[in-house]
């Protein structure tokens, strides 16, 4: 209350967005942070307000999103007394925060808040939670604001080891079949230009993780696509044929590597990484180049000598052709009656000139969105990568629109995940943020259904959804809404949505039992990737 009473006085300076649920506030803060590169902020009251933040904080932690969460707390003399709406949010949030702190004395406020923002955005970014007891909120004192520029015990960026740079350069110069796999570290490090320079000068094919995509344009000739469970055929297969794997700002997540005992065993591995704890965590590497990729990449670019790698690059093209024939053709240019998720993405690409911010939720539509969305600019793919949080996209899209109001923001959501944070339609209505919301409705929790079909003999246990009338719900919030279920209506509906300068809701009824391929079955090797 005292906090909000002060906010009331600063309405013209500080925009506050009232989400309908605290989880929505965290995802909106994440969307804002991911699209802008700035720290997202959310505020919640003590007790249930604070615990409702936890999913978003855990999501931000695993996806390295800079965020500061401020929670209210009971007065300090009531701590530990089971007071009304008291919860040990410091204890609860410890494993999922980069740092957290409880303020019981108002004089700590300026220093702690400055430190919170510094920690959240520096080094490998992450969420910070600051819990403020009610007595500290009521107290006042004269303060001077000093920005935080360092914390004694905290080393955000490790020192660059010049020997490692030399060793990496030596490995690159010897390689005949090198492959780059880049992750979000390139974007978080604001190193897109340095990365592009390295790729172009070295002429090495480069593949991305779902959080790394958009660091260079989709149509870049050396961009060979996505690695991982539903990634592209070529980069997955060829991970086990390359002689040098250059991992840049990525963490060898299990969805990327599949079976570790059969992952790039034939290759030398170079890992460019800001977080020393990530080195040799999942994959033992030959050379670890610690540091900020913005600083380390130019050191590699300086020495690298381009080679044609003609046969090697042709291998990616050959695999692309196979994938196009077996998968992409039917996804993007279907001849059967039912609408595919892929063709919806194709229409969105067309209508937005390959330059929308795509915010996806979690499941089949997410994999389709990451596979087929085309990007021209960085920070354009926002999704819950590590935690896989259904319900992420609707509030994250709202935050993204606020972080980049000049950009087209399109949320791609399944019918399952949409209903996990559906109440944030209310926030979109109230703020009139021009978010375009696309629900790809297959009346199933589609990814789980796909696994049930492939690995559990089609026993669809609790994955079928009986859905409400989504268009009516959107209209209930006075949001322009449309439902499409025929191919001939799709293009015009997407055009109408993109042309709108207001929030817009589009439901597309897609094929119910379609599957996402390629697929590396859980626990299988990247070379066991299936096309059907």
């Amino acid at each position, binding site marked *: 209350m005292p906090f909000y009473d002060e906010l009331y006085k600063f309405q013209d300076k500080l925009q506050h967005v009232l989400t309908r649920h605290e989880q929505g506030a965290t995802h909106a803060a994440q969307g804002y942070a991911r699209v802008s590169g700035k720290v997202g902020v959310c505020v919640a009251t003590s007790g249930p307000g604070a615990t409702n933040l936890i999913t978003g904080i855990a999501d931000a932690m695993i996806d390295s999103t800079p965020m500061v969460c401020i929670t209210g707390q009971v007065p300090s003399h009531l701590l530990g007394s089971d007071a009304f709406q008291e919860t040990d949010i410091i204890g609860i949030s410890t494993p999922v925060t980069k740092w957290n702190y409880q303020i019981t004395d108002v004089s700590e406020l300026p220093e702690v808040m400055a430190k919170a923002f510094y920690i959240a955005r520096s080094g490998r970014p992450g969420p910070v939670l600051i819990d403020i007891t009610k007595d500290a909120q009521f107290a006042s004192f004269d303060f001077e604001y000093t920005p935080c520029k360092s914390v*004694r015990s905290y080393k955000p960026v490790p020192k660059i080891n010049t020997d490692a740079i030399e060793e990496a350069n030596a490995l690159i110069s010897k390689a005949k079949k090198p492959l780059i796999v880049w992750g979000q570290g390139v974007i978080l490090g604001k190193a897109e230009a340095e990365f592009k320079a390295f790729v172009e000068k070295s002429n090495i094919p480069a593949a991305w993780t779902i959080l790394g995509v958009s660091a260079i344009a989709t149509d870049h000739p050396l961009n060979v696509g996505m690695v991982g469970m539903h990634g592209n055929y070529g980069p997955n297969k060829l991970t086990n044929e390359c002689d040098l794997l250059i991992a840049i700002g990525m963490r060898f997540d299990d969805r990327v590597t599949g079976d570790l005992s059969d992952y790039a065993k034939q290759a030398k591995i170079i890992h460019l990484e800001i977080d020393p704890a990530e080195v040799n965590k999942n994959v033992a590497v030959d050379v670890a180049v610690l540091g900020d990729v913005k600083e380390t990449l130019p050191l590699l670019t300086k020495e690298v000598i381009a080679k044609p790698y003609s046969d090697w690059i042709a291998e990616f093209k050959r695999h692309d052709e196979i994938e196009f024939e077996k998968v992409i053709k039917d996804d993007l240019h279907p001849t059967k009656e039912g609408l595919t998720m892929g063709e919806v993405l194709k229409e969105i690409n067309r209508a937005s000139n390959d330059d929308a911010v795509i915010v996806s939720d979690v499941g089949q539509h997410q994999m389709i969105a990451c596979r087929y969305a085309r990007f021209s600019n960085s920070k354009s793919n926002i999704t819950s990568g590590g935690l896989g949080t259904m319900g992420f996209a609707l509030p994250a899209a709202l935050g993204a629109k606020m972080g980049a109001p000049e950009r087209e923001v399109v949320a791609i959501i399944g019918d399952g995940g949409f209903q996990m944070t559906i109440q944030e339609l209310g926030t979109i209505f109230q703020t009139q943020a021009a978010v375009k919301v696309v629900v790809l409705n297959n009346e199933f929790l589609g990814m789980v259904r796909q696994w049930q079909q492939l690995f559990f003999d089609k026993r669809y246990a609790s994955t079928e959804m009986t859905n409400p009338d989504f268009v009516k719900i959107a209209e209930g919030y006075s949001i322009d809404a449309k439902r499409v279920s025929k191919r001939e209506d799709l293009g015009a509906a997407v055009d109408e949505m993109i042309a709108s300068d207001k929030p817009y809701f589009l439901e597309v009824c897609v094929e119910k039992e379609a599957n996402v391929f390629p697929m590396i079955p859980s626990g299988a090797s990247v070379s066991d990737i299936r096309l059907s």
Partner: protein
Amino acid sequence: MEKKYTISIYTENSVGLLNRVSTIFQRRHINIISITSSASEIENVSRFVIVVNLTEVAVKKIVGQIEKQIEVIKAFYHTDEETIFQESALYKVASKSLFEERHIQNIIKNSHANIVTVNTEFFVIEKTGFRHETEQLYNDLAPYGLLQFVRSGRISVTKSPMNIKALLTELNDKNQTDE
């Protein structure tokens, strides 16, 4: 192969850090054999000593995760051979057995234990040493009836220098140039 490792952590002295450190073990389903936290040789810097059974690959990763915590200054891991370590134990025994059982006096003398306090009802013996020594004294005293027994976690210092003071000076200097 799993082995006994002593993890030493120098940290800022702050509320909640014990939880932040212990949760790193809990999350990986690792049982901590012993943990102690105390002042260190540097003012306002705490030192944790944690003993675990792990493979070297696993202990390296754990130390990496610990060092990543904002308020951790530096973390190390060492084998028994690389450290000097001790544990302390206290044994509370009924006073009457001291007078009725002559043998108990020999046990105390031979074990090089100290008598901390004696009164009409009980006396307390303190023994500092290796685990097998405090266990031996426990086994020797148990037949006479132990009213209470408690043993501390391991405390240890390393044979090689840790150079934390130099590191802190470097960090402080760096911070000053940053500002």
